[in-house]
């Protein structure tokens, strides 16, 4: 069994070689067969040639006619006066003559070419027979025969009879044996052909078997391949399902985390708004809020990364004032940099100054904050330079290039490789020193690539690093409200809005949003300034942050509502976290008209502004309308 198996495997492995060998063998055998067949058929043809029979017959005829002549001679001798007998004898001689003549002159000679003995015998016979013609011609001329002549003829032909007979027997034997030999040759040839044909059939058969084996193998392999393919498909589906499960898990988890996280942040804000807190307690609560916000940041990072991975990132298209965006990003880190003694500067090339581009501001900001933040974070000495370049190109979107160079510790070649990969921080000591999820750069990369751009980093350890982004962006002239925008803004009235917010980032964000909505924005960094501004300018809307230094939102509202300033009746909206109905009541008591959750969302602002423009005063909350509050507002209206 093993041996057969071994042979089988051997054949399998060298299957191709075997097939080739067999094919060659078959071809050769076919050739041999063709040749043999041709040879055989030509032999058959020569076998079939009847000449040999005729030769024998011719020899036989000679013998026969010699005998008949002899008898005629006897008859003439016995009846010397019989004219007919005489004539018959003459005739018989002529016939003998013609017979031996045929044997010597005809094509029969060819048969005896390989047999000189025969030729000699025939020649001798011919000479002997023809030699007697003189006698017979004399007798024919005379018209009769003498006894002597007859006796002479009788004697001669008696001997010739024997010769002729011997010749006949020899011919017969020769021809018979030759025939037998030929037949044997043919039989041998035929059997050789038969064997070759059998070998041919055998090899063809073997070939077929091999072919069958090959086909079976191929089928097996194909089945295997199909199986593997379907296994892979299953695995892929499983992986996809796993991925989807992961994503949906993340989404669910993030929402689950966000809710209590919002509560932590919101409640800590509320606590801070309560002025009654002691300083130390305030600081502790600040910490809680900061921690909450950091957690939220981390959560957002994770969600961003997930959405990038799942290709679910959606980009907006907005007109952005390039320098303004950059300035606002850099501003965020100025104090940090200053504290460390690191110089932070923006270099914008001539052509990028005062340009407007179309992109997603949020994501662009995200990328910039990440890069600039990293640079400032890791640089202790020297400077961080942000360079911006806008290259206009014909028929193509312009190329926006932003570089963040620092004089930090630099990154090794190994580190550069791992840089944009998620979770892998360049060196574990960084994690310990700086914290972070390790997703920042991965997200930045994801965003850049989603924008059809490229991102990269170069670094010289010990000298510093440069991170760069290149994006294709559409440039645009300073936007006059386009037809769509115009429509949108047409719905929105241009109002004078006072934005009171102490956090510079939030302030900038809210201010830019309002500007984008086509509003005239004034900013105040604290309550006191707000009151002062409100005293001299009339605003259509005041957005009041709650927790501010110097003077809180509530205090400022009361101050504005008191007196006869131009904003006594102005709509004042609190910007606060989810608060309890008590706190809401406190707002309303202070004279506020409603509240908006932080951070402010643009759609809500839009809706708010639109409603204001229509003259209606709608209560806007984080989760949409709070029907419970409507009656309160209406009451107040009526009261006013």
């Amino acid at each position, binding site marked *: 069994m093993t041996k057969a198996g071994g042979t089988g495997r051997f054949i399998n492995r060298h299957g191709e070689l075997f097939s080739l060998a067999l094919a060659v063998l078959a071809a050769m055998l076919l050739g041999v067969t063709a040749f043999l067949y041709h040879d055989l058929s030509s032999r058959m043809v020569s076998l079939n040639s009847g000449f040999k029979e*005729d030769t024998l017959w011719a020899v036989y*005829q000679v013998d026969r006619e010699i005998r008949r002549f002899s008898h005629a001679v006897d008859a003439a001798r016995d009846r010397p006066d019989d004219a007919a007998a005489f004539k018959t004898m003459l*005739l018989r001689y002529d*016939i003998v003559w013609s017979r031996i003549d*045929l044997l010597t*002159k*005809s*094509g029969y*000679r060819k048969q005896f070419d390989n047999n000189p003995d025969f030729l000699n015998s025939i020649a001798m016979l011919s000479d002997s027979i023809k030699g007697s013609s003189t006698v017979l011609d004399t007798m024919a001329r005379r018209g009769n025969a003498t006894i002597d002549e007859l006796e002479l003829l009788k004697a001669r032909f008696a001997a010739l009879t024997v010769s002729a007979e011997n010749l006949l027997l020899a011919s017969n034997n020769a021809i018979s044996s030759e025939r037998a030999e030929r037949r044997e040759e043919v039989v041998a040839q035929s059997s050789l052909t038969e064997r070759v044909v059998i070998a041919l059939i055998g090899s063809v058969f073997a070939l077929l078997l091999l072919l069958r084996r090959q086909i079976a193998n191929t089928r097996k392999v194909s089945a295997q391949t199909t199986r593997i393919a379907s296994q892979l498909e299953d695995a892929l589906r499983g992986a996809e399902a796993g991925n989807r499960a992961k994503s949906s898990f993340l989404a669910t988890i993030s929402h689950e985390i966000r809710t209590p996280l919002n509560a932590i942040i919101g409640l800590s804000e509320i606590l801070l708004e309560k002025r009654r807190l002691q300083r130390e307690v305030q600081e502790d609560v600040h910490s809680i809020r900061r921690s909450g916000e950091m957690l939220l940041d981390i959560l957002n990072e994770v969600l961003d990364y997930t959405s990038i991975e799942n290709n679910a990132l959606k980009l907006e298209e907005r007109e952005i004032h390039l320098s303004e965006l950059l300035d606002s990003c850099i501003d965020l880190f100025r104090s940090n940099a200053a504290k460390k003694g690191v110089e932070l500067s923006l270099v914008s090339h001539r052509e990028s100054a005062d340009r407007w581009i179309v992109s997603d501001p949020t994501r662009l900001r995200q990328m910039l904050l990440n890069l600039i933040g990293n640079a400032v974070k890791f640089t202790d000495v020297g400077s961080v330079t942000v360079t911006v370049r806008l290259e206009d190109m014909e028929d193509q979107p312009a190329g926006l290039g932003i570089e963040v160079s620092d004089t930090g510790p630099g990154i090794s070649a190994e580190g550069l490789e791992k840089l944009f990969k998620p979770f892998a921080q360049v060196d574990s000591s960084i994690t310990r020193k700086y914290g972070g999820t390790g997703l920042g750069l991965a997200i930045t990369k994801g965003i850049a690539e989603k924008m059809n751009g490229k991102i990269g980093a170069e670094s010289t350890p010990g000298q510093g690093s440069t991170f760069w982004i290149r994006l294709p962006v559409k440039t645009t002239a300073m936007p006059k409200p386009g037809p769509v925008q115009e429509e949108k803004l047409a719905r929105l009235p241009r109002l004078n809005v006072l934005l009171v917010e102490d956090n510079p980032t939030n302030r900038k964000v809210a201010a830019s949003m309002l500007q984008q909505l086509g509003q005239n924005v004034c900013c105040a960094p604290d309550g006191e300034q707000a009151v002062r501004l409100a005293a001299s300018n009339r605003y259509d809307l005041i957005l009041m942050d709650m927790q501010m230094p110097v003077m809180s939102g509530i205090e400022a509202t009361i101050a504005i509502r008191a007196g006869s300033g131009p904003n006594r009746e102005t709509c004042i909206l609190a910007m606060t976290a989810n608060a309890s109905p008590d706190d809401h009541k406190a707002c309303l008591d202070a004279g506020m008209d409603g509240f908006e959750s932080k951070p402010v969302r643009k759609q809500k602002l839009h809706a708010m502004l639109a409603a204001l423009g229509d003259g209606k005063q709608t209560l806007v909350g984080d989760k949409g309308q709070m029907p419970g509050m409507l009656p309160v507002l209406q009451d107040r209206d009526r009261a006013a």
Partner: protein
Amino acid sequence: MSSLAWGQSPPLAPPGKNAALRAPTQPVLLTVSGQITRHNLGDDAAFDAAMIDSLPAHEFRTWSPWFKEPMTFRGPRLKTVLEAVGATGQTLHMVALNDYAVDVPLSDAERYEPILARRIDGKVLGVRDKGPLFLIYPFDTNPELYNEKYFGRSVWQIREIEVVE
């Protein structure tokens, strides 16, 4: 095939159904017997050399198994002779001087037009030359005849033709 001119003997009676056949004046070369309508010797028709020569002759050159090279055969067509004797029937029983006999279908005479050769290469045939008459088929123009069947029918030293059914 070159044709050789021959001196003509006094012609036989003009062909006609009941035209008479003259009697032989020289030794008889050929006797035709059996189902014939014209006789000159009892029930048979006998031909001498002159009578044979007076019939319109035909010649052709051909290979044959009895000669080492192609020979020119000349003589009256078999069918001419049969017409001359008014032969009716299907088979010709040919007999040679040595008593060799063979049956030749009468249709051969019409189909292949063999000749009763009287001369080979211009030489008048004697018995020693396979004469006086040699039935030869035109093998060269009819290669399908070049086999034992027709060799067998190519009788030489013809003595008698018996026309039978």
